[in-house]
């Protein structure tokens, strides 16, 4: 259903989407993050993506854990309910909320500390359950909010501002997600909106758990020389393997694709993702191949980006449960409770 919007002064030059909304209608509160923080760029990409998909903002459930990254759901979709869970515990909140009402769009924002350390277990199990949601890891290699400690995604040899090097191997969310059976695995960069927006759109439309690891530099604690999560380093080693064009349902595929490089994948709602191979070596529907490809490029220290693995046929939490296709919020009462009680007690005498 749609609601009458309160009259808002629309800038004449701002385009409207299919619902008659401008991008402004997808914004939220003022960000309180550091100027230049990668997380803010991701917020902007999210706003753009939701606007482009004609999503009703109030039909989104946005959620996060704790961290600078996890603050961002307050900065977009002001008409959507949001919840800041506990540090690392957003996946369980998302799972319960989705179980209760799978009709909404679920959008989770997390950090590398939030997902790969304290929340690693919950992250893995939400993937395993294939909760139908978009899950973003705004990955800066550090704990921003607690002032710059290394996170579990920090690369070996990456240094702190004071020059101390990290010596433990990183946990790569992309490798982790693929090996856990995640049905949509992508990597982006907060500094490349052109690549990121369609990835987010495809992730929102994917049925199942869509994980996007987004390199998102922390200007306060991890953007110096020696850091492997700085803007400069990310740009230098950025390796787009594949480009995903998101095409909404009923829209024609208009762009011209070079033969053998374009792979259209139809999503359950009728929209299409055209995977445009930048690197012909990579096949995003071949799990073993994808892992091998990532492994090769990791050795070259390259940051492979794009929609790296996609399985559109997987069944999500509700499909596995065979839940009725409705919200469970208001359907629990039994008309025949007295008869049920009596039937039960008949066996207890």
């Amino acid at each position, binding site marked *: 259903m749609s609601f009458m919007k309160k009259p808002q002064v629309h800038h004449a030059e701002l385009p409207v989407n299919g619902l008659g909304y401008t991008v402004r209608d997808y914004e939220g509160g003022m960000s309180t993050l550091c100027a230049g923080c990668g997380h803010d760029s991701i917020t902007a990409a999210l706003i753009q993506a939701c606007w482009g998909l004609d999503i009703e903002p109030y039909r989104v459930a946005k959620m996060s854990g704790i961290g600078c990254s996890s603050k961002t759901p307050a900065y977009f979709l002001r008409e959507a309910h949001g919840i800041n869970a506990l540090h690392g515990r957003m996946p369980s909140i998302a799972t319960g909320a989705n179980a209760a009402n799978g009709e909404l769009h679920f959008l989770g924002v997390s950090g590398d500390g939030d997902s790969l350390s304290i929340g690693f277990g919950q992250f893995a199990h939400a993937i395993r359950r294939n909760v139908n949601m978009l899950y973003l890891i705004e990955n800066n290699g550090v704990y921003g909010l607690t002032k710059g400690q290394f996170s579990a995604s920090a690369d070996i040899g990456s240094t702190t501002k004071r020059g101390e090097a990290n010596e433990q191997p990183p946990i790569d969310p992309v490798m982790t997600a693929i090996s856990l059976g995640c049905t949509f695995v992508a990597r982006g960069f907060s500094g490349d909106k052109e690549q990121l927006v369609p990835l987010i759109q495809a992730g929102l439309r994917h049925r199942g758990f869509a994980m996007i690891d987004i390199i998102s530099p922390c200007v306060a604690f991890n953007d110096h020389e020696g850091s492997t999560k700085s803007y400069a380093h990310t740009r230098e080693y950025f390796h787009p393997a594949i480009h995903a064009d998101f095409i909404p349902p009923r829209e024609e595929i208009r762009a011209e694709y070079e033969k053998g490089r374009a792979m259209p994948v139809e999503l359950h709602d009728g929209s299409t993702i055209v995977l445009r191979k930048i690197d012909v070596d990579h096949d995003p529907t071949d799990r073993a191949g994808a892992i091998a490809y990532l492994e090769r490029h990791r050795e070259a220290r390259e940051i492979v980006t794009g929609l790296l693995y996609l399985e559109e046929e997987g069944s999500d939490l509700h499909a596995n449960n065979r839940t009725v296709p409705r919200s469970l919020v208001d359907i629990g009462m039994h008309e025949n409770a007295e008869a049920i*009680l009596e039937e039960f007690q008949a066996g207890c005498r």
Partner: protein
Amino acid sequence: MTGRVNDFTLKIATVNGTGSASANSLLMKAIFRMGVPVMGKNYFPSNIQGLPTWYEIRVTDPGHLTRSGEVNFMVALNAETFAKDHAEVTPGGYLLYDSTWPRTRELDRDDIHVIGVPLARMVNHHFVDARTRILMKNVAFVGALAALLDLDLDVIEQLLTETFGARKAELVKANMEAVKLGYDDVREHYDCPLPMHVRRADMTAGHVIVDGNTTAALGAMLAGATVGAWYPLTPSTSVMDAFKGFCEKYRRTADGEREYVLLQAEDELAAGGMVMGAGWMGARAFTATSGPGISLMNEFLSFGYYTEIPGVVFDIQRVGPSTGMPTRTQQSDLMECAYAGHGDTRHLCLYPADPAEAFHFSMRAFDLAEHFQTPVFLVSDLDIGMNEWMVPELQWDPRYRPDRGKVLGRDDLERLSGPFRRYMDPDNDGVPFRTLPGVHPAGAFFTRGSGHSKHGTYTEDAAEYQEVMDRLRRKFETAREHVPAPLIEYAGKAFSADGRRPQPVKYGMLTVGSGDSAVREARQNMKAGGTEIDYCRVRAFPFSDDVQRFIDEHDTVFVVEQNRDAQLKSMLLCELEVDADKLVSVLHYNGLPIASMDVEAAVLDHFRKAKAS
């Protein structure tokens, strides 16, 4: 004592995993069907096969559905515990053992009657298959007991038929053969029935035999719970098993689609989060766990308290600390539940005394959780949850309507002028209005466990923070008179000066949960000995004013509870205005359900000491 008809305790000692459980419940059910009130307690090990297990059946026409504390008839079938079991029989009592292996040397008591039945020999002779032999040995002793205690063989056959169903008639036949083996042998060698036996009566009509985990689960389903999240943990597991069983039967559409989701979480922390997520979305959600799980859920309980999200937690208490004794009972999570979580937190707790109350309180918990927008505990225990209890039939209240609390719906939000403010107190009862995701854009707000103002916005402002904390305290005060009131019974007949309630006697006794029936029997026994004691059973936290008054009007109040550290007493002292010297603790914490004898002994001991000093 040997002549006790319909009033004695029978204890069966066997080895876990030998199929004795079904023989035990067969016995209990048979006595129940014969119209005689009966109590059954299962003391089982945390093991699948091989460790000792006991089952205690009390045949009790006075209706004392609690452990007396003595054993009048021991069925000693476990070689490993034989000496201990033999020693436990009260003088004048009986001991039945498998005389395939005579125990002449160990049977050195001359104050008990010994009945030897060659169970193994008879069964091995009659049945061929090894597993059948083990199982049938247990059925054969039921037959022996049937002869000795005068149990009705037709009732036993009927029960076996109901268990196996008409399609497995050959199993019924084999079982009845085993029953007859024991039955005939005993009749041949002993005078049957014994002076201590069961006589048909008409005292169980209108009752059922149920366990409290099953009834709590049924309560959850009938209260409309649609999301359950859990991690397996004895003794709470059967709550979820039962919930699933009920939902599979009553919550699937004609096409087989489920109108519920059961999530087996990766741990209790996640289970807590799933309940909070579903509660935030607006569904009735719950988890079932025990002490170790509550420890993990603390983070979310603090979160749920502060963000004001409904959710129900069943704590089926077991013996702690740590892994403790997983299959033994205790009331040692009273404080953990009441104050779970970091920061200033406190939670509504309901304390059922038996499976019937577990059913009603389970439903009540969902209403309270949504009414007060907070996590609510159903604090049960292993004794209530896993033992079979005879209770009055559960009644459905046709007027029941779920209390979904103060939720602004679509139309309310359509009419709303100005932004929605989440944490206001428009009704002066501490309870704000909430909105649910996906309903209307005007209802949106951001839920956070970080500091928030009454508007629901982020704050670090001293006054704004405190204002919300103070309202939360007011909300808790409102709940005081909404939760189930204590049950209070006065011993005397005289009325107080204002004529409103009976005149209290000098002593009061206060307990919680499954201590109820032991305290009741102890009171009755002491009354017969000339000591009258008033009684109060606390049924919820926060404690209502009635609890305060009960303590005020007595000189001494015995606080009976099943933990070492007097947790209930500590809570009374902490929450009410009471003189600590008035409260005398009666503590029981060895893992067995408290017996009436334990209560009586402690109270009489207090009187003796008081007199001496």
